[in-house]
């Protein structure tokens, strides 16, 4: 009864508000974000408070990680300086209100692009920058080899992430039972698993090595189950309603992928300026006016690649063979190598 009342009331209010405000609604929001960012002299980037390899402050408090570098690339494209970015640590609950309200300009934060988020949450998503899926970390001595053996297990996970829904779905599909323990605080979550409160930790598969290496006293006591159990395409989110800003974020991401496909890297960016290939010269802003079309400096992609490198450079820096968390590239390589990364042509 009460709920129905609220429901009706809410709708009436909103409809009347919509009618009342539709007259004066043509607010020039186009370009507002870029203008704000330029005036501030700083890009605000919503980051995961601590997901090793993706985003986490290091011992000196400097943010490092794959997603951190994506933000630095955007900052470099705008300001020509990849350091003009400030990272705001956001919990999974705070991330959407933060981007919606303008507390941050762009939200990488391990966010899976979904239809609901794209529509009802008032967001727009860049092309996926990292393809991953649900994975499980378990204790080695439990002897678990497959998800079927997790029947009856206690599983730790973060609230409201797509993880919670995916776990429910895959366990239901296999007719398995489990007890979810849902903890928002990232550190509490990891310590609950490590202390043995849960039999398994469910997270994006590629975030699990970080937990294993950095959170567990002995990494060898834990194994990641084989198999990826859901589709989690991670993408950068921006606010709905500012197409110019959306274009910038989208094309910086495509640009990093295109740079890899065309053999441009942080190391050879300067040399490539003199490339004989007109397409490369266009990309790097030696010729053409692609930067201007985006509302940026013509050297936008050159600056981005110069400051953090191509997609490949960024990936190798954080997940390459020599790093603490080596991850095979899997599908996260260019389509020309059989991967899923497909930068649209900069033409």
């Amino acid at each position: 009864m009460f709920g129905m009342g609220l429901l009706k009331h809410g709708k009436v209010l909103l409809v009347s508000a919509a009618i009342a405000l539709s007259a004066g609604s043509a607010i020039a929001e186009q370009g507002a974000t870029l203008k704000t960012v330029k005036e501030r002299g700083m890009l605000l980037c919503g980051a995961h408070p601590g997901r090793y390899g993706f985003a986490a402050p290091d011992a000196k408090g400097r943010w490092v990680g794959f997603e951190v570098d994506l933000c630095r690339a955007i900052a470099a494209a705008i300001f020509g300086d990849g350091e003009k970015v400030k990272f705001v640590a956001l919990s999974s609950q705070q991330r959407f209100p933060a981007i919606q309200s303008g507390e941050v300009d762009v939200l990488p934060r391990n966010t899976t692009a979904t239809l609901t988020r794209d529509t009802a949450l008032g967001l727009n998503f860049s092309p996926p920058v990292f393809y991953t899926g649900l994975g499980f970390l378990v204790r080695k001595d439990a002897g678990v080899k497959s998800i079927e053996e997790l029947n009856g297990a206690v599983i730790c996970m973060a609230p409201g992430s797509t993880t919670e829904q995916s776990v429910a779905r895959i366990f239901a599909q296999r007719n398995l039972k489990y007890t979810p323990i849902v903890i928002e605080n990232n550190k509490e979550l990891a310590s609950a698993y490590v202390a043995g409160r849960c039999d398994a930790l469910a997270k994006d598969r590629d975030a699990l090595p970080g937990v294993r290496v950095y959170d567990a006293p002995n990494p060898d006591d834990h194994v990641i189950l084989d198999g990826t159990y859901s589709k989690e395409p991670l993408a950068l989110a921006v606010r709905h309603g500012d197409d110019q800003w959306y274009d910038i974020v989208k094309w910086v991401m495509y640009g990093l992928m295109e740079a890899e496909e065309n053999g441009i890297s942080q190391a050879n960016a300067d040399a490539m300026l003199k490339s004989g290939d007109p397409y490369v010269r266009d990309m790097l802003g030696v010729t053409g006016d692609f930067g201007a079309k985006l509302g940026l400096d013509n050297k936008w992609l050159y600056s981005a690649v110069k400051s953090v490198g191509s997609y490949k450079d960024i990936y190798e820096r954080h997940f390459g063979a020599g790093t603490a968390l080596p991850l095979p590239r899997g599908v996260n390589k260019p389509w020309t190598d059989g991967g899923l990364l497909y930068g649209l042509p900069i033409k």
Partner: protein
Amino acid sequence: MADAQILPAPGRRQPRVSRTAAWWLKDRIFSSPFHVALSIVVLVGAAFIGQFLLRWGLLDAVFVASDPAACQAAKGACWAVVYEKHRTILFGLYPHSEHWRPTLAVCLYLVSLTITLMPRFWNLRGLALLWACTVTAIGVLMYGGLFGLPEVATSEWGGLALTMIMFTGTVVMGFPVAVLLALGRRSTLTLVRSVCVTIIETLRGVPLITILFVAVNVLPLFLPAGSSVDKLLRVTIGIAIFFACYQAETIRGGLQAVPRGQYEAAQALGLGYWQMTRVIILPQALKIAFPAIVNHIIAALKNTSFVMIIGLFDILNATTSVMQDPVWRKYYVEAYVFVGLVYFVFGFALSLYARAMEAQMKKGHH
């Protein structure tokens, strides 16, 4: 009011002439066979706990060690975890090279607090000025950007320094609001009264967490597009308003207890409402409600720890994050006990102070 009930009933204590040790033993410890048995049980229990705490916390404990291996060998507490991580516990993510700034800010704060607690400086205008200066100075010190200090964003503030800042902000912002709400609730203007009652009763009826959710997640949507208020400021305002609603009720209790003759005398002198309130009524009301006011100030200090839920690095959350280090993780009890002691020292000191002041005020009256 609740505080009045805590006082012992009049005439409860009779004058006692001789209080020898034997009298104490007989009267207060071994007064009957039941009490003899009870005392023995309590003594044995207390001795057991006491010697355990002494050995664990002091004799067998490791105080300084850069390697947790030293702790593993010892049987007692590993206070080394606190020593090793003290910078994070005290200052959170604040840049290492700038740690003198929060240190100075905390000292400044402690000096102002000490001055405020001394009755000889009790002067409404003077204290307001003092705290305005203190808050400005702490703000400039912490945030920087002036006098060649590098800028440090509020998102990097943390640890004990952040707890202190939020506590100060809560009381400095919340107290005036509390006074206004209390006066408003007793106003003769129907609208003013009902607005104040609504605010006070609504906010007292919901958990602090929901108010923090509003401050962090909802409030930004209520501001015009493109404008933004600093998250730390929003959160502190949220805690301050919550504090104000509780404090308003204790102040209202004080206002109600001011004798009617005081109002009449003030009017007879021809004082206006605000003048009467400020000069005659409020000082008496605050004095009457003093113990309860201090209780709520202690509660405000403890309430700042709720920001852990929304991811600010106060002393508790900074300590939790320290426990993320796998090699030190085992010593979580020591770390939490340390943080608990910090809160305890502040809270207990304030409540002892309140009790002493209360006794002094009573002496002054009779």
